[in-house]
């Protein structure tokens, strides 16, 4: 009889902490622990929320009658850490230090590894982190931006892209390592990545380029951006907010949900239809661009993320990219399960845990 593993998975969000306890692949319970503005307002930085969030997790476990001592491992989502290769990492001090300083920026998931480590330490069990957004498998050619002082960084929805790609490969009866895929994560932000034999060799950073999304502006004309910045005399944080939280559908239509846009279209709003189709057009264009990275040798195109549940949107995308390869749709994103599976691969000895930071090749500039 194979050994059973009980895993606690943690995904910190800006106003909630999603947790799940699993006995192998089976869900014991999942819960979204909501945090009030008052509770979170007591902290200057996300990092300082550690003890508060840990307490709420331990309390949730108690309420669900899950003994802490019954856990085999804890796994959490990672944040903007050092560029690393894809995989499951053992949480270590350097990872925690990088989370504290926000190595590549402030991100709520920077607190994930320390939460896993803190809970695991007291229990004497391992703590892991799987595929943080800073996974970097770019090939040298992908690192050029067009200006030597502005590098092109790999900041991607790695956790969901990798997990979905694995799932798709399994369904196709192939190993991920034997396939070439283009995966588009379509959520509040959009990342499109070409996976050559399982490695994300290129991708757009949804916060600073690629298709516009429900909230992000994506790639905007540089000259126009310079004029916008200087004409409006806005502080840096405000400009970032404008491009990352108030761009895309929010900018054009004032809403950030696909359902709301589809409702507008259903009511005959032609402008909403045009904007929405433009988003599909840009996603398709990005998929096409990434297909060229794979020199056209694409086994399948995968659409995933919360917004890929919109048939209207995915039909428009399919119409433009189906000539490249078959399109498979995996709506939604199950980050807890992605974390779980990464953790189980290590616990079962299928993969060796990586030691942070397993570095990527240096920038060839």
């Amino acid at each position, binding site marked *: 009889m194979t050994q059973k593993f009980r895993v606690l998975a943690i995904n910190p969000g800006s106003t909630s902490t999603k947790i799940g306890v699993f006995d192998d692949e089976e869900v014991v319970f999942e819960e979204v622990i909501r945090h009030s503005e008052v509770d979170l307002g007591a902290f200057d930085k996300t*990092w300082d929320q*550690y*003890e508060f969030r*840990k307490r709420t997790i331990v309390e949730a476990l108690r309420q669900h009658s899950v003994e802490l001592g019954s856990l085999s491992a804890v796994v959490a989502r990672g944040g903007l850490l050092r560029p690393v290769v894809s995989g499951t990492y053992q949480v270590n*001090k350097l990872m*925690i*230090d990088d989370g*504290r*300083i926000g190595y590549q920026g402030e991100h709520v998931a920077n607190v994930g590894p*320390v939460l896993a*480590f*803190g809970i695991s*330490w*007291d229990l*004497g069990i391992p703590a892991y982190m799987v595929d943080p957004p800073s996974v970097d498998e770019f090939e040298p050619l992908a690192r050029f931006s067009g200006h030597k002082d502005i590098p092109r960084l790999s900041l991607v929805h790695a956790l969901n892209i990798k997990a979905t790609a694995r799932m798709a490969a399994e369904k196709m009866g192939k190993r991920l390592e034997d396939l070439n895929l283009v995966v588009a994560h379509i959520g509040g932000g959009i990342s499109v990545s070409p996976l050559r034999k399982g490695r994300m060799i290129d991708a757009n950073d949804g916060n600073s380029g690629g298709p516009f999304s429900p909230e992000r502006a994506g790639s905007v004309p540089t000259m126009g951006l310079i004029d916008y910045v200087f004409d409006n005399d806005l502080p840096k944080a405000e400009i970032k907010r404008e491009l990352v939280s108030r761009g895309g559908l929010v900018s054009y239509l004032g809403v950030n949900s696909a359902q709301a846009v589809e409702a507008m279209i259903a009511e005959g709003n032609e402008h909403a239809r045009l904007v929405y189709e433009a988003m599909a057009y840009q996603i398709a264009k990005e998929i096409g661009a990434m297909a060229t990275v794979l020199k056209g040798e694409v086994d399948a195109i995968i659409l995933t993320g919360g917004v890929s549940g919109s048939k209207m949107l995915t039909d428009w995308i399919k119409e433009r990219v189906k000539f490249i390869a078959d399109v498979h749709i995996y709506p939604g994103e199950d980050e807890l399960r992605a974390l779980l599976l990464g953790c189980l691969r290590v616990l079962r000895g299928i993969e060796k845990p990586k030691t942070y930071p397993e570095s990527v090749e240096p920038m060839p500039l």
Partner: protein
Amino acid sequence: MGIFDLMDAHEHEEVMFCYNSTTGLRAIIAIHDTTLGRALGGARMWNYKTEADAVVDALRLSRSMTYQASVADCDTGGGKAVLWGDPLRDKSEAYFRAFGRFVEGLKGRFVTYADLGTNDRDLRYIRRETDYVAPFVATATAGTDGARVTAYGVLCGMRACAKMVFGDSSVRDKRVVVQGVGEVGRQLARYLSQEGAAVTITDVVFDAMKRVQDEVPGVEIVRPEEIFDCDCDIFSPCALGGVINRANVDKLKCKIVAGAAYDVLESDEIGDRLHARGILYAPDFVISAGEIFQSADKMRAATEKEAFERAGEIFDVLLRVFERARREQVAPLRAARKIALERIESIGQVKTILCRPPDLGL
């Protein structure tokens, strides 16, 4: 071994068992020696496995307090209160007020203060029933300041050790492993980092380590079970007593043992073994004396300046202990005990001189 045998072995004056069925209070107050003055000792609350463990801890710790006061040139005796209970579960106002009444019953033979497992809030309840609570440095963050004084004393003690071992009293570039980062260990880690030492910490509770790491990001961490495998210059036990024992004394990879925890050695023979291995041991009751410098001898709160100045004297006191040990070719622990007992004996003899003639009512 019976209670009287234990008292005889440790040379105790009095052991008091306090019980209150309403509050669940089960406490032991051990008074070791009052030759120099009232027995001063913290009230430690701990969930001991057995009653015998609680008794032995009270006896050992109160004896250390006697030696500590004597070597530190304080006019207090040695005592300790052990409250046998779970600090997270068993505390209540009535619990501590019941304990306070037992302390009051001793009419000043025993004076207490907050220790492991108890805090200022608990002391407030005790104080409602008795005046025999040590008046420590009065600041808004008294608990933290007390830890700072103790930690500063340990730092000064480490400097004395470094002078003996490395010929230079600086801890700069020395690797120091701190076992236990509660308030004292945390403050010590901060001091050591400021002094340029390379610091490694461990604790059974991660949150305590995170608090240190957030303040001093450069500290390294290791798992508690790996602490004795760490190569270091100074091993600093700042958690519970008895951590160095027969099983691990030969595993230590350090040149100095110097920490804030009481009764670090399982027995005196462990001190001899360290000595034989060439590891300098700073006797626990000498190096951790910063704790009692917070109250002056006459039940008056010391000012912060006074407390830190006296904690700084630990440097010289330890050098005297090491010199005596070198001269007599014994382990520092035994030399420190001798110094303590000599002072108790001589002051005890002085106290036989009648200075307040009895009122004969003539």
